[in-house]
């Protein structure tokens, strides 16, 4: 029992330790920093350009905990409202941002696509990515 509690505590501590996330872009991007508001507007497809760069927001899969955290911390909209928002947008011919199934694929995508913007745990960020905001 103690062992179990210990494991839980360890895991919890790990999760607390990994709760640092960052908004990342391609390392060749001329964007250096973004505000939370700018990130929110980009992911809600309200803002398409930063400087002269067309922004391509990339979500992880809807079940991903990272995406939930992102929605909670950055977008600050719960899932139901968000769904309603995208339904409204759909009628205007606007689809939600692209998704990538995993952190790895997110990373690879951002690396390859200029203007793409995503979010990753800071631990998974390498030199090919540029952090523009942390949360």
């Amino acid at each position, binding site marked *: 029992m103690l062992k179990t509690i210990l494991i839980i505590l360890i895991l919890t501590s790990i999760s607390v330790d990994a709760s640092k996330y960052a908004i990342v872009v391609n390392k060749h991007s001329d964007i250096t920093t973004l505000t939370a508001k700018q990130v929110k507007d980009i992911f809600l497809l309200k803002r398409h350009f930063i400087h002269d760069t*067309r922004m391509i927001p990339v979500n992880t899969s809807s079940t991903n905990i990272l995406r939930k955290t992102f929605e909670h911390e950055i977008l600050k909209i719960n899932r139901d409202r968000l769904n309603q928002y995208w339904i409204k947008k759909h009628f205007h011919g606007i689809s939600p941002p*692209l*998704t*990538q*199934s*995993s952190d*790895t694929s997110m990373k*690879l*995508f951002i690396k390859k*696509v200029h203007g793409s913007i995503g979010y990753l745990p800071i631990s998974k960020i390498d030199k090919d990515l540029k952090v523009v905001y942390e949360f």
Partner: protein
Amino acid sequence: MSFKLKIILLILSVSLIPYIFIMIYMGNTFEKTYFTKTQQEMKTQLDITQQTIEQYLSTIQRDMLFMSTLDVMNDIYSQDVDRRITHLLINKKKDLKLDGNFFVIDNKNTIIASSKKISLLTKYNQTPFFTQEIYSTFDKTKIATLVLDFSLQNISNLFNNSKERHYYIIRNKKEILFKNDSFTSKINVQKTLNTKPSIEIVLEQNQENFLTLLENYKRWFIIALVLGAIVIAFIALYFINRLIKPILMLSTATDEITNKQDYTYQVPVISNDEIGTLSKAFNKLITSMNNALVQLKIEAKNREELIEEKGKNEVLKELSTKLSRYLSPQIYQSIFEGKQDVTLTSKRKKLTIFFSDIVGFTETTDTMESEDLSELLNDYLDKMTIIALKHGATIDKYIGDSIMIFFGDPYTKGVQQDALACVNMALEMQDHMEILHQKWKEKGFTKPFQIRMGIHTGYCTVGNFGSQERLEYTIIGSSVNLASRIESAANPNEILISEETKLLVDDTFSCKQQKKILPKGFKRSVALYTVKTQTHNLSKHTIEVKTNSQWVTTDDINSLSLKEKTNLKKSLNTFLDAL
């Protein structure tokens, strides 16, 4: 070639040849129609199949286009392709029930996703059936190509093959797939599909059954053709016989009539058409001919009888001509004209009777040769007869050297005219004797004949006398006897006439009373007169004047008394007036 045969050939050629042509044309048309129809049907079927295939292929192309535009294709960037894209390709293959595979190849021709479990990241080196370029959904750059390896089995699954029809495919114009090689005889139609590489779909129809059917059809067709021809021939023959029968009957009738000369033959009229009319006309013609023939026979018979009668008449005429020489022409003519019957009949008539004979004829006959005598006599009688006939005398008979003549029967010009004619005749005979004398003298007859003549006018019984077997047309009566007696009383070269005659001719001829005689058998004496011709024995200037019933003859007109001159002038005026 007979008429019947000509008609048969004509009608058969008119009916059978078109029939055969039509039947053969129909047969060929059937075959062509079958082929055309079959080909059209096959084309239609092929069109439908083509549409189905093209729809199917179009669906695949649309699906590929749709797939290429999906967001998941952006996974190509993240190289996380084995998840969503592969899943998509596999599901689509399942959905389409494809015999083939989708591949996603990157711009370097490396397979990055596939519906087939193969090692990824190998080079794609096949010829794709369809290709569809994939562009990123955000910046429209080509990120990969969706290709389809497509088995043509997919298309063959759409073929609606049957026992008699089968589809096959020609790929790249040489590679033949799904062909049914069991068809030995076939027709086909083909279409090229709008695909790359090119595919031609061929629809093939097995011809064996049709050829068998065609063979059966041809057999039945030939049987029908022959039967039809036989039926047509029989019908044609039946009608030809009906048509020809009246003509043959006409022909037979003509032969019968020609051979048997039976013009009563009649052709039966069995139709009311032109031939019937012809038969009626023929019958009418034959009837007319028969009537004409009967008439002709009657005519011929009549003619024969006529000829026979004519022959008889000719004989009779010849006989009568011969007989006529024994008869006076008047008697002959009168009898032959039917004016006088050859019966024992007689009538009383006043006639002038003439007798003449040759003086001393009996003595002469003793001194002459009989031939010479006969010649002289015939010459004399011939000339006298000619003169007698010229004056219209009826020569009764020749009695040796005597001639008995009378005037007034059977023809008469009147008693006086008959008497004048008789006296004229006697005078001419007398004149002619001069000529005969001269002629006979030249022939050496030194002793010429001298004739004496007696004339009397009186009633006689004239007619046919004798028996039923033999008749003689003559005159009898006392006048005849008297005339004979007067002749006997005449001197040579003298003409003696009775008073009765003298009274009739006194105005014309110079008569002088000669004597009176009492003829034998007569009770009264008869005064006889000589007749002188008006010119006889007178010179060229001799004038004979009748004064007070007395004739005065003189050569010198001045010797005449005044009365005689007056009478002469009067007579001449009367004469000139008469001229």
